[in-house]
């Protein structure tokens, strides 16, 4: 073994001793044990956190690492969700082939749409990209609402899934433990989302990811060094969008129901933006924290507000304010952008770096 190889081996080994890798392992273990909790609400929350961690991380790739503000991310999510829903619904009795086909369709659609979007808007100004992606996303939203023959319009699509994912099915018995279809779906989603998250981390740390950050920080300098902006932005957009469509795929697997408002709605972009900014832009791990925060609050806030409103039975305005809990998310979103733009992980990283610098001094 040459000294260089030995050095690399040492470095590889030291990665597993860092506190961050211990946290990662603990997180995955915790998620594996979640189905033991006998509450469906907790499991539902865990699944949504996993799915949205992946979706928000892919959004972080586009926004935080590439510096492109895309409003079409929810659209890609919806494309993934609808491809599962429509293939399973229109096939009558779905088979595994349909799921594989849905995955291929979702990926192909998102790659094509991302390429179209990029070719039309990235050649001019970054601001054009935001506007065009908004227009395209709204077009798909309207399409989902009004193309009733295909998407069943605003009623949404309810469908059944094949094999062990079918809730009416038996599930598996394994070493005397009966795993219900719900739990099996949970583990499938856990597997897919962990894989996708690792893929995203690898992408960010790859040479392409490094170049992306260089372009974001100083475009002139990186073009002077010989890196082309346009292809790199396309790589990031296509990759991030495909991951988002896989997020939609998992979402449809879990809910077995999609409707235009929840998966294609333009305003769900505000949710994504809130998650990515609370976690911290350009940090990847921030997306897990952002998603966990958002989903937890989203699950409990309506109950809390209804509880508060119950104390004021006479005032109609308070009842209405309690019903519109989304408004508080909007206010929080504006406040976070204005006073806390680095997010939780970004601020933590800043503090740690400052401490290290002080220690060196």
């Amino acid at each position, binding site marked *: 073994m040459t000294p260089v190889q030995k050095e690399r081996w040492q470095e590889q080994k030291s990665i597993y001793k860092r506190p961050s890798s211990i946290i990662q392992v603990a997180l995955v273990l915790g998620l594996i044990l979640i189905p033991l909790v006998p509450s469906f609400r907790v499991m539902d929350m865990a699944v949504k956190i996993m799915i949205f961690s992946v979706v928000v991380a892919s959004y972080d790739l586009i926004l935080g690492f590439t*510096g492109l*503000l895309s*409003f079409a991310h929810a659209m890609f999510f919806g494309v993934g969700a609808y491809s599962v829903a429509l293939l399973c619904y229109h096939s009558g009795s779905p088979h595994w082939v349909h799921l594989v086909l849905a995955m291929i369709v979702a990926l192909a659609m998102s790659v094509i749409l991302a390429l179209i979007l990029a070719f*039309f*808007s990235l*050649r*001019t100004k*970054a*601001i*054009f990209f*935001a*506007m*065009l992606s*908004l*227009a*395209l996303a*709204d*077009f798909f939203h*309207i*399409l989902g609402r*009004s193309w009733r023959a295909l998407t069943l319009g605003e009623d949404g699509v309810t469908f059944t899934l094949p094999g062990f994912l079918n809730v009416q099915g038996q599930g598996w018995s394994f070493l005397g433990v009966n795993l219900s279809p719900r739990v099996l779906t949970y583990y499938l989603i856990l597997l897919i989302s962990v894989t996708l998250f690792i893929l995203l981390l690898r992408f960010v740390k790859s040479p392409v990811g490094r170049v992306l950050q260089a372009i974001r920080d100083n475009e002139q300098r990186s073009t002077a060094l010989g890196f082309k902006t346009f292809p790199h932005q396309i790589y990031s957009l296509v990759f991030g969008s495909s991951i988002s469509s896989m997020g939609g795929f998992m979402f449809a697997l879990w809910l077995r129901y999609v409707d235009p408002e929840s998966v294609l709605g*333009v*305003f769900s*972009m*505000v949710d994504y*933006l809130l998650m990515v*900014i609370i976690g911290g832009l350009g940090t990847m791990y921030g997306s897990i924290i952002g998603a966990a925060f958002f989903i937890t609050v989203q699950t409990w806030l309506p109950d809390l507000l209804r509880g508060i409103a119950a104390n004021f039975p006479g005032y109609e*305005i308070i009842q*209405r*304010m309690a019903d*519109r809990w*989304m*408004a508080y998310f*909007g*206010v929080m*979103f*504006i406040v976070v*952008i*204005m006073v806390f*733009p680095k997010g939780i992980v970004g601020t933590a990283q800043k503090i740690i770096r400052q401490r290290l610098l002080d220690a060196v001094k």
Partner: protein
Amino acid sequence: MKKSIIWVCAIGILFIPLIWIKWTPYLVLTTAGLAFGMFLFMVASGMTIIFGLMDILNLAHGALFAIGAYLGGYQILNLLNTLGWVENGTAGQSMVSLLLAISMGAVGGALVGFILERLILRRVYGDHLKQIMITIGVLYVITELIKILWKPTAEPVLVPLSLQGSYDVFDVIIGKFRLVAIIVGVAMFAGIQLVLNRTKLGLIIRAGVENREMVQVAGYNIGRIFTVVFMAGAALAGIGGTMWCIFQQQVTPEIGLDNLIFALIVVIIGGMGSVTGSFLGAIIVGLSFNYAAFLWPKLALGINILIMATILLIRPRGLMGKE
């Protein structure tokens, strides 16, 4: 020279649908399309002026539009109806109620615009990413606020009596309110051009578009001018909202987002920051939407995106955009 070629091309394209449509429905569709285009122009003009001078892409413009619709169109007309002016008043009372509604829409839009600019946008000048994120957040919050203050469902809007119905000119049916919309739209375009080209404020605004620092050097308080321009743009959006909801005869809280998308398409087609461009873009979008809805109802949704894509391929910065 180049601009006149664009105008000739645009007028030429106007007659292409005649291949499929007969004269009478064509004229009906054209007036409807022109009126629709004027509504779009009312939203897009404010947006394009704000972008041109302040370099702010204001996605909250849809919210200002919605506030105009609810305050001016819904609230004021309902209020005046209790006096008996709207649904069964005289011609004069109808006109006055329309004027009151429009001015209330404008005032409401301008007030909210003032608060928005002073409280929020002032802090994020020069940062496009933050501006876009914050303004979409504002749109979201105001949409929810409307659901709290009014109702989350669609509400009917009253139409002043003498503006109901339509004229019949040689079998060409022209809605009375469409005619009013065209008049208001053209008047607004003329007014904006007049202010921009003939007044001192317009001179400062045009100078600010060219070079902001030089205007400051010349001794003008650019912050105050920004506020005024933002309020003016917001008032234009408010007027647009009032007119639109009377035309549609209903308001929904999502009115802001739906029209924001149309306005964005118009602004992109026309070229960011150009009022003439957005006037032209609005007419193109309005007409093509109406023709397409008549010929191929399913395609009508996509036609605007299609037109936008084509124009961006030929002129990446829009019809009248600066190179």
